[in-house]
């Protein structure tokens, strides 16, 4: 089974939880953004209860959880925004 790598970006509360602003993640071909959130929940205890992912951005644009990722994609989970 081939694998790919994506770049995860962490902002706000997720940056605090992850302890970093970015990391690489190896995924099986065909993995979706929702699969990455599942990995997040398993990797970071404070997220275990969050079955539904927050908003997701792929390559700097909002994307559906079912979006199939490609090698080199930049994936960011967007906690509730509070700009302004």
């Amino acid at each position, binding site marked *: 089974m081939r694998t790919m790598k994506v770049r995860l*970006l962490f902002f*706000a509360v997720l940056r605090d939880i992850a302890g970093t602003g970015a990391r690489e993640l190896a995924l099986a071909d065909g993995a979706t953004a929702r699969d990455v959130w599942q990995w997040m929940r398993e990797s970071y205890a404070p997220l275990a209860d969050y079955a539904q992912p927050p908003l997701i951005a792929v390559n700097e644009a909002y994307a559906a959880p079912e979006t199939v990722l490609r090698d080199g994609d930049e994936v960011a989970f967007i*906690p509730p*925004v509070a*700009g302004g």
Partner: protein
Amino acid sequence: MPYLTDDPIDSDALVRSVLRNSDGAYVLFEGVVRNHHEGKRVESIFYDCYRPMAEKEIGAIVREVESQFPDVALAVLHRLGQLVVGDASIAIVASSPHRAESFSACRMTIDRIKETVPIWKKERGPDGEEWVGWQGKC
């Protein structure tokens, strides 16, 4: 011109950047760090941001609002980093020949920005600090 800055906002310069000789009115909105939120005292706010995406999102909002109000010229500047009570976090200027469009466009712009632009704030006060909007929901 970028929509994001790490420096204090110069709202006069923002006004000058949009005002045309044909404009009879402008509306400037500024969001300001206030000393309270949902009953808790606030001393400062840290603004985090997904910068390249936020630039794109704000740009899309500006283009959308300007297309809805063709007579309006818009400028937006959001400040990031550590701000204290009284600091402006965002300034929006809408100018137009007549005032109605400036009010509507300015209001629509701030409403949209608060809905979708990837910017977050961590409030700090005597009781500690907290990411706004995160607690209890995702």
